[in-house]
């Protein structure tokens, strides 16, 4: 579980995050949504420890990150898996080497053990025959699946995904969403996804945090986001005709 309390982050005079408090629960897919410029990426980078923040706290299973020693911080980071928006695969390594990388860095496994583990996770993300390919030879969807495999290979307690569906077709997006949800459930990981894809919200948003102008405007689940009266949320969610119809359907069901 990750607990965020009163988080503030500024860049010079620009106050980006304005007192965000929320909780991301274990075994659930938690989504951070909001328009571009709402502070989603900055929030995610604060959660990852890539940005320092001025006020507030972030606690990983009760351990407040900013109060930990460097060694303790390193231990927490070793428990984090991250799927970057552009996959961020190391382009000088094969797909298999990319997946084995966290194991090489943080474990004392024998090469055969690492190989077995890499085989297992690549099979888990349905990439049985791509081991020796270079990332540049893989499609966008394949690269995302490799990034997920790399993120989960060291059995992380926390999984972060920055816009995992960006640049993917709707069908591949759904495959990636389902994969993330299955993995979260299977390994009981605390998963936090940064997204503005409403399909993801509907499919896997067990907990949703909606950000607007650096504030937490709303939080809830994918079921009650379609029933909320919060104007900022409804403006964001029902910007497309499709979701207007979905809302209508939900409201009719309730009546």
């Amino acid at each position, binding site marked *: 579980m990750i607990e965020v309390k009163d988080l503030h982050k500024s860049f010079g005079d620009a106050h980006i995050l304005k007192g965000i408090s929320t909780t991301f629960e274990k075994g659930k897919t938690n989504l951070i949504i909001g328009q571009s410029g709402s502070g989603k990426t900055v929030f995610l980078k604060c959660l990852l*420890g890539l940005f320092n923040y001025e006020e507030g706290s972030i606690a990983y299973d009760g351990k407040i990150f900013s109060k930990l020693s460097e060694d303790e911080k390193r231990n927490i980071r070793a428990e984090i898996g*991250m799927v*970057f928006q552009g996959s*961020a695969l190391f*382009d000088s390594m094969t797909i298999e080497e990319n997946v084995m990388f*966290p194991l090489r*860095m943080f474990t004392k496994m024998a090469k055969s053990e690492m190989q077995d583990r890499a085989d297992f996770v690549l099979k888990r993300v349905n990439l049985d025959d791509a081991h020796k390919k270079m990332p540049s030879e893989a499609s966008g969807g394949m690269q995302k699946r490799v990034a997920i495999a790399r993120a989960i290979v060291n059995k992380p307690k926390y999984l*972060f995904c920055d816009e995992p569906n960006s640049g993917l077709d709707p069908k591949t997006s759904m495959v990636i969403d389902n994969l993330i949800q299955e993995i979260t459930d299977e390994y009981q990981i605390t998963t936090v996804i940064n997204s503005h894809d409403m399909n993801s919200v509907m499919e896997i948003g067990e907990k949703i945090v909606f950000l607007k102008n650096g504030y937490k405007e709303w939080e809830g689940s994918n079921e009650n986001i379609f029933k909320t009266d919060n104007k900022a949320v409804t403006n964001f969610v029902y910007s497309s005709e499709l979701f207007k119809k979905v809302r209508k359907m939900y409201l009719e069901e309730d009546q």
Partner: protein
Amino acid sequence: MTYLQNIGAYFLMIAEMFRKPTKWSVMRTLILKDIDDLIIGSLGIIAFISFFVGGVITIQTALNIDNPLIPGYLVGFATRQSIILEFAPTFTSIIMAGKVGSFITSSIGTMRVTEQIDALEVMGINSLNYLVFPKTIALMLYPFAIAIGMFLGILGGMAACVFGGYSTLQDYITGIQTDFETFHVAYAFIKTFVFAIILATVPSFYGYYMKGGALEVGKASTTAFVWTSVVIILLNYLLTDMLLG
């Protein structure tokens, strides 16, 4: 002010490079890969340029000293001095600032743009140690490449001298043995060692701290080449003054 900030950031980067070292088994692989990319991969161009510039120095010297009072062995002497003291250590390093330097800046810069450096940081890896340290260690072998350059430069001079008919082989060999001071070779290697550190770290600095996209990677490579060359030229002056002055 920006220059001062950059100088400060550069030295902080050097200090950070030694913190949280990467696992030795991984580091060994990185160092070997960088030796292959930066040293072995540069031997061809160093050999080619050294051989032909050695030849040109010989021809130029021979054509400019046609006075019968000047001994013929001076051609070999001048070629040796030019190559050992300046051409091999300094001018080869300027050429390497273009070849190795732009490779380092663009590869690290591309990793920055494509979030690969963020991926390393998220995993708790000291990305500066992972990326810059092995390049610095690999370039410690740079003096060996320069030694090959010195040998081939003098050999190129000999070939030009003999086959071009500018002097006799005997005169050339006498020239390269005349007043030979071993400290001059030591001086050249001291300079090369310092330039190797500059060649590894200045381009890494510009690649690591770049912001933006593909266009900025290109700009960073150009800036890195300019500043690496400037630093090499300035240090060349200071080292020459300190060691030979």
